[in-house]
């Protein structure tokens, strides 16, 4: 009985393998698109602040400032200080975004889903030079 079951389990038809391979390609493509974004490599240069699906606004990290963003629930305050950024106030209930603390490395992201505000740090556009320079 077990022998027949294992034989059956291992039996993928060639068409199944075709489907499985394309599914794997899709997964790898999704990872490479959404996780290994090249603009999040290198030294952090700018802060992108985004509300809902509006296009993000960029702020330079070299200038200390407090940014007021209008979210879905209310205002959110984002602080830039010493090339780092954080939420200092948010109108959401859970305050996960505030507790997340400072963002300092390019690629760091904090999203406040209830308020639909997210901030992320972007690196220099010249990524490969930044990597070579680091080595």
């Amino acid at each position, binding site marked *: 009985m077990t022998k027949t*079951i294992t034989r059956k389990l291992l039996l993928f038809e060639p068409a199944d393998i075709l*489907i499985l391979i394309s599914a794997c390609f899709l997964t790898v493509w999704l990872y490479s698109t959404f996780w290994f974004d090249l603009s999040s490599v290198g030294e952090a240069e700018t802060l992108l602040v985004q509300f809902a699906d509006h296009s993000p606004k960029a702020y330079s990290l070299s200038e200390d400032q407090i940014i007021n963003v209008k979210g879905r629930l209310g205002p959110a305050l984002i602080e830039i200080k010493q090339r780092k950024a954080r939420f200092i106030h948010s109108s959401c209930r859970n305050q996960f975004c505030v507790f997340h603390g400072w963002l300092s490395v390019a690629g760091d992201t904090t999203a406040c889903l209830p308020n639909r505000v997210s901030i992320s740090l972007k690196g220099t556009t010249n990524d490969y030079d930044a990597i070579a320079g680091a080595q």
Partner: protein
Amino acid sequence: MKRHFTTTHQDHRVALLAALAITIHIIEAAFPSPLPGVKPGLANVVTLFTFMMYGWKTALQVSLLRVIISSLLLGTFLSPTFLLSLSGALLSLGSLIITQSLFYFLPQRTYLQPSAIGYAIVASISHMGGQFLMAWYFFIPHPGIFKLLPILITFAVILGIVSGIITQLTLSQLTKAPITKTRSTKR
């Protein structure tokens, strides 16, 4: 005045399969899921089984009945959960039909046609994709949610293979024919 309703064999079949799917759906809803959005989706085994045994029309009936009645029983009718469930079910069935019609143009040999495993992978990915797009469009319209998509699709592929194997075993048990129909007889 007395009215007579006659039920056909097809109605009984749909009712039986839908009842099975609803039961599985509700039992599954009682278990907590490790990740939000990731569920084994064992109720889709019934849909897939129906699709492969009786065609897409029966599968559509069973799947719609399953979504509507189990949402009524769980108390999520017309709620976001219901919308997610409905869009997932419809999109996965639609992609099953598309896959079948794509492979229809190939010769009808067993090894050229996908088995339940292939169909289950397609159904699982499109189910997850449909729910995800629905969630993104209506509930969390924020591009940050796309960071979650690769993980969800990875789980969809794995769970799709599992449910495909279950469906294939069920099919082979119920049709009393070995899975390797053409190949085992040739050898």
